């Protein structure tokens, strides 16, 4: 399972990066999304995956003795997903405004703020 997820994470990272390097702004947004999904998956993976053993202490014990699925990374990912969602929403509105203001979706033409005059 780990191997499959590791390969998937790598694929997501490279796809995200590839899309971000494109000229189109829509691809840029898709790249941003893939990159944040890849990051979330990475945290999930690197914090070790344990299946089917929830972190619940049974009634006749006072601590966990077995290996258990760590809830902390899941909480981290949940937070990161929410934050990522907010940023993606902002970014999508932003590219819409950029397109409306400039009439182009080509990143190469969006460099007027860097020109020396």
């Amino acid at each position: 399972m780990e191997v499959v997820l590791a390969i998937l994470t790598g694929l997501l990272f490279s796809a995200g990066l590839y899309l971000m390097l494109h000229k189109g702004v829509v691809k840029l947004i898709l790249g941003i999304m893939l990159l944040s999904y890849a990051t979330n998956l990475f945290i999930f993976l690197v914090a070790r995956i344990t299946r089917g053993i929830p972190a619940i202490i049974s009634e006749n014990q006072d601590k966990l003795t077995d290996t258990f699925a760590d809830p902390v990374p899941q909480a981290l990912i949940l937070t990161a997903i929410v934050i990522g969602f907010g940023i993606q929403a902002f970014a999508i509105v932003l590219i819409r405004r950029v397109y409306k203001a400039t009439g182009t979706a080509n990143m190469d033409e969006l460099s007027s703020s860097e020109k020396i005059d």
Partner: protein
Amino acid sequence: MQNISLISVLIIPLLSAILMLLMWGKTKTKRLLGGVSTALYLLASIALFAEVSANGLILVDVGSWQTGFGIALVVDMMSALFILLSAILALVSFWYGSTFIKSNISLSIFHPVFFFLLFGLSGAFVAGDIFNLYVWFEVMLVSSFVLFTIGASRSQLEGALKYVTINVISSAFFLIGVGILYGLTGNLNMAMLAKALPLVQNQTLVDIAAVFFLVSFGIKAAIFPLFFWLPASYHTAPIGFTALVVALLTKVGIYSLTRFFTIIYPLEGTLIQPILLVLAGLTMVIGVLGAAAQTDFRKILSFHIVSQIGYMIMGLAIFTPMAIAGALFFVVHNVLVKTNLFFVAGSVYKVFGSFKLKELGGVMLQVPTLALLFAISAFSLTGIPPLSGFWGKYLLAKGGFDEGSTMVVVVTAVSLAVSLLTLFSMTKIWNEVFWKPNPNNDSRSEVKMSFITLLKQHTGTTVSIVILTILILLVSFFPNSLINWCMESANTLVNRDLYINGVLGVK
């Protein structure tokens, strides 16, 4: 007992932001509320600072969870110093911003978002847990995205697109670093991480995580070669909005770098130390050369931010208490001076209607007060004694030359040479904007303003500039207590056991 001043540093901006959202459109009330709450925020941060310097580190476990299980808020001397600095800036830049902007819709957005940004800033400075730091970063970033795009002109949107993209990448790298550290140690609390990391068997992975943090914070701090977003976006937003952003966002990067590479992962003797040192040198040189090529008031200042970041990184990379104290002093000095220069640029724009060096001129004859205020800040930025820049550079240079290894000495010498180039571009602004005759033959070349008229016509903006100038002069002529505070912060950072034991409660 939970700490009241620490909590109020977080609660005041949050409450003000929410209240301001409810008062959409009522500009006057909001201005009053904003003035009151920035003043309260300043009081709270002074109280916090006094408390920290009297009793040392303050720890609050949110929700009364035991340290390490819940989120811990930790304030040491460095955090308190940064919070105090942001409080002072919040006060002046709120007034500058709300009197600079005329459009009501823009102001309605500006007011609440400004306080959300302040909320994120103070959160980032008190976070004692790396994931929590990430969350505060995002609060701050989203607010700054909004501040950058208020007004939505073409160049602003273009700048913002780059700013957003690069920050998303930076956040992703940050999260990857957090993930690796958690996977290795099972901790997120900074002090516990600091204890656990040396015990990790696979130290290569720790180094890899450190590189992720270096890149992520490096992007935020705008160090070479990760700074290109800064000159592309900083100058686009209206000055009134971005005073706080311009001055403080990169410094949050510096804060996090300093925090991470002292407490969690001490830089000394690692592979990253020489890399950081070289990057610091390159950042200084490239930044100042970039500034030399520009012909826009704000773009020159933006590139100078990059160059000055190099000095702070250099102090961190030298890693002696003296040098780190120098870096912290430099942060304080730089935030005050740089904000003031941007403010002056904004005021020149208000009177003369342009930021382009070509179209400006004769400011010294026409509005001599602005010229004087600019000169004080510009000299201070260059580091001419006895102004504040000199003390910062003196501490850094002394720290560097005392450390003595060849590489450090070379970079320190480079930093001194860069000062000369800084003087060159300040002279360029001076010549073009203040000294040469006004190239326009319209009404703008007839403006003549004494200090009193300037104060009457542009009250908020002028008062902000004067307050900042007075602060710069205070730091310049009475640097002792600030230097002592910086030394104290640097000592806690270098002798990290003080911090770790303070947080974990070990005597």
